[in-house]
């Protein structure tokens, strides 16, 4: 028996259960139900969460706080207003704040340490308000619809 013959025999004989089921029957009776169940488990696992809901897809917006921002503000110099006082977002949108400065900054609900990247996904409609340490406005309001 050649190596190929042995592989073929293994696939058609030893790979199946010893009860005498043919490979086709084994695939139909055992493997197919396993595949269906496995797929169901996988889908359930990937979508489980609060209330069984899936996260809505959205757009990711990135806001970079330049290095030296706090220092320029302390000197009374203007800085780029990277984050408007009032923003509109959609449910599912993600805001990423990349703080390249050497000071802690807050942009509404997001607080980022020096050199840190912080992100939040807005999963629920509502109004998010918080302080703003960048630019010429003291607060940021993000309205999520």
């Amino acid at each position, binding site marked *: 028996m050649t190596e*190929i*013959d042995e*592989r*073929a025999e293994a*696939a*058609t004989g030893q*790979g199946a259960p010893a009860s005498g089921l043919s*490979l086709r029957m084994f*695939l139909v009776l055992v*493997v197919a139900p*396993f*595949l269906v169940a*496995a*797929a169901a*488990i*996988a889908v359930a*696992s*990937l979508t*489980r*969460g*609060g*209330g069984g*809901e899936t*996260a809505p897809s959205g757009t990711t917006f990135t806001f970079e706080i330049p290095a030296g921002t706090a220092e320029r503000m302390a000197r009374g110099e203007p800085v780029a207003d990277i984050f408007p006082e009032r923003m509109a977002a959609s449910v599912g949108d993600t805001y990423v704040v990349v703080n390249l400065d050497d000071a*802690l900054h807050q942009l*509404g*609900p*997001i*607080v*980022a*340490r020096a050199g*840190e*990247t*912080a*992100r*939040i*996904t807005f*999963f*629920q409609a*509502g*109004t*998010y*308000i*918080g302080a703003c340490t960048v630019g010429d406005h003291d607060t940021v309001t993000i309205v999520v619809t």
Partner: protein
Amino acid sequence: MPRITRGTAPTRLWAGVVAVAAFVLAACGGDEAELRGMVRDEPLQVAGVTLPEIVDAASDPARTQPFTFRAPPGEVLVVFFGFTNCPDLCPTTLAEVRAATRRLDPGDAARVGVVMVTVDPDRDTPERLVQYVSSFSERAHAVRTEDPAALLAAEQAFLASSTVVRDEAGNVTDVAHTATAYVVDDQGRVIVEWPFGFGIDGMAHDLETVLRQVRRA
């Protein structure tokens, strides 16, 4: 040659079975449903923070024990800085945390502790604070210090802040505070942060996700 064909087709089928099984294992065991609250590249580390926890407000309000901001093994803490006279932010957030916890399996819900750190200790007496936070959780921790420096240090560890404004007579006229809730794991890491208004759905989702993580660890 025909036998080669017979041999390779089942081999492909088995390869498919293995691939599907691998996918299932990855989906079931691999992380990680994405957290929906605010996350950082490097989580805040708050295990080094200790404040007094009220132990027995009913019989001995002055009695406290050190409370470390690290959940017991396999559990999580939801930490909130607030005050009991708060008209909106505190009761809303704590009620949402309670609702989110009730959506969990009972076994998971029992692994969620709720910690309220008062930012207004003069008015939040031990009895009042314990009664308040206990109304939102069966696993409540009432944390209170009269040492402003200790409170400030704790707030800074969480990147939180608070201000109590008084009139000339010393009466409190306003209390401003960070309204974020922090989920702390059993390593003392803030895994996810929920800004005010984050919502019950997102909280429940994140609690499930973090509880799966701490159970595996």
